[in-house]
């Protein structure tokens, strides 16, 4: 279970203090609801370890995550954009999610190829991110997140700006991910995303 208790954060030279407390179980999705500037992205950055909280705790399966750097936390983030390394091809981008030195076994390489087939991107291994559409880029990023196999997925407006078809495909992938027992933390302005994906709502 992901447990956030009394987590507070304040940006330097500002008065506003954000406080967060919630819990999410395996196979659940919590949607964070609030207007722009209410702290949705801040919360995701705190969970990912990109920001350091003033106080409070983040626990996963009773292990304290606060002191862990981003690379040691059991999380994967998916942002609205800039999820891929622009100078590396699709296969390398995905492979780096599995092993940061790209030391992949044959099984892992096959998993990438099968994964690309499953997201409708057969033969895209050597394509560069710049050659892909917004939806295709998000599918690659999501595939990397799935293959990375971390238990918590942080989603910051992941479907914003995509066409209807791409949104449907990605929602289906996320639901599969959730059904596999992963925890989803979703920040989205879109009511339909929240309705389809979320089991809980956190109002900020």
């Amino acid at each position, binding site marked *: 279970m992901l447990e956030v208790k009394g987590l507070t954060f304040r940006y330097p030279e500002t008065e506003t203090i954000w406080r967060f407390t919630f819990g999410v179980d395996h196979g659940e999705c919590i949607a964070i609801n609030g207007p722009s500037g209410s702290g949705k992205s801040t919360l995701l950055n705190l969970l*990912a*370890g*990109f920001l350091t909280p003033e106080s409070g705790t983040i626990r996963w399966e009773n*292990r304290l995550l606060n002191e*862990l*750097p*981003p*690379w*040691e*936390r*059991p*999380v*994967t*983030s998916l*942002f609205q954009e*800039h*999820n*891929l*390394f622009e*100078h*590396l091809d699709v296969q*390398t981008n995905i492979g*780096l*999610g599995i*092993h*940061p*030195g*790209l030391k992949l076994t044959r099984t892992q390489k096959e998993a990438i190829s099968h994964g690309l087939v499953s997201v409708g991107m057969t033969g895209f291994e050597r394509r560069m991110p710049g050659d892909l559409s917004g939806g295709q880029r998000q599918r690659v990023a999501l595939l990397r997140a799935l293959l*990375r*196999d*971390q238990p918590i997925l942080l989603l910051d407006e992941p479907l914003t700006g995509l066409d209807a078809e791409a949104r449907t495909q990605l929602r289906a992938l996320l639901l599969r991910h959730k059904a596999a027992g992963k925890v989803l933390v979703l920040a989205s302005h879109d009511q339909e995303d929240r309705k389809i994906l979320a089991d809980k709502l956190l109002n900020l």
Partner: protein
Amino acid sequence: MRHSPFGYTQAPFSHPAWQIGPGLTIACGLIALTVTGVAALLWQAHLPEVSELWRNRYLNNVIRFTVWQATVSTALSLLLGLFIALALVRQPRFPGRRLLLRVMELSLVLPTIVAVSGLVAVYGRHGWLTAIVEQWTTVRWNLYGLNGIVLAHVFFNAPLAGRILLQALESVPAPRRRIASQLGLKGRWLWRTLDWPAVRRVLPGVAALVFTLCFTSFAIVMTLGGGPASTTLEVAIYQSLRFEFDFGRAALLAVVQLLICGALWFLMVRRSLSANLSPAREFPESIPRPDSQGVRRLQDVALLLCFSLFLLLPLAAVLFRGLPGLATVAINGGQPLNEMTEATLRSFAIALPAGAFSVFSGLLVLSMSSRGGGHLSRLSSVATAVPLMVPPIVLGTALFLLLRPSLGNSYDGLALVALINGVMALPFVTQLMRGPLNNLDKSTVRQADQLGLRGWYRWRWLHWPRLKRPLALAMAYGTGLSLGDFGVIALFGTPGQPTIPVLLYQQLGSYRMDLAAGTALWLVCLLLLVFAAFSLPGYRRNHRNLAGNVFKALAEGRHA
């Protein structure tokens, strides 16, 4: 390899000590080398009374002349550079624009002694232009002294200033330029709204850079100074060490130079004002300016043509005068060919290690700067700027004095030259790598952090693809700078074992002008060869035009 409870794989060399330690060692080493350099001179000789600086007429004159020539050269270089940059911005379709930009880049990497021979061929007593002017007018012109020094400094630095200012002017956002165009802003208002805000950001950095280059100029003053009245600090230090063996005076003058240049760079580092020397120039959307038509267009074209001639004539002189000499050496062979071959090999034996040293140490110092906080960043800025302020001769002499017991033969002296040349190239080499190394955006860094791309993995997957070309260019630059060096080698070289620039100087000194012209051209050819060789990987990958690449590679240059 350690695995975390959540399956994280630790990357090799990801411990903070690996990311900061080597760079910190090099940065401290560079600063220690500088301090030790001056201290070694003081240790070997008693420092004269400081009051000698204003009591001794010669020293007084040297300091005043150094400051004066650097100020005049900087002012003229910036003024001309600004006019050229503005003309190029106003006339994006000037027919010779690309050629002029290439020549501006080429003139910057020319070894000083080669460029000086070109300038003498055009503006000297029997020069092309002097002959024409004297035939048609009563104007008489002497290249030697302040005139020649300033002319040569402007020849080298106006293109440098012009290029950086042009880059700044072209970086004005397109929407702002469109609005200015729609409103029909001209003259003072166009300058105030569009040009001045862009120029103002880089002007202090360019001014400091050009002033430092002119202030510490050595070969130009040595060759065009013309006598004691036109001596600069750097040359006076050289004379004190080489001819008068007065280490105390050399140390005093080195301290004065260090104080003046150091104060300037301290201000620059403190206010984060630095000129961007990156060769990557983006060609912006061409938006017509209201002030680019009519008489102004004619004025701009005339200015650009004159400036092109100013740069091209000395280069043409090097080519035309050098071809017969080079052909004679190649056809007749014998002693001159042997001399040239040996000098070429010796030059490369010094230049390649010097280039490798400067690139390697620059990379480590910059890596430290990008990983560490503000203090480490400032330390890195100071360490890489120090070689600009300290005369290489002082560093060389100090090392020579310190290592004298263990320096056995001439090869040790050449190794010392390679080391000092590598250090001297650092400020320019690091400028080439700084941008690509530090421009990882926030989202990329966060993504990399989350995926565990740290240490060696971050270098392999994020930095190396971006740094390949700048590294090759930096290596070409470090090598080229050392190849054209006539400062350190003048002190440590032995006449019997010359490098190419020393051979050229010897030939000029013995009035073997044809041979000297051939050697000058040969040096330019070697320089082009170095830049072409280090551009080849980029050529193969990108299938770009080789010549274009070579000249693009030359974009980041400084006269040796």
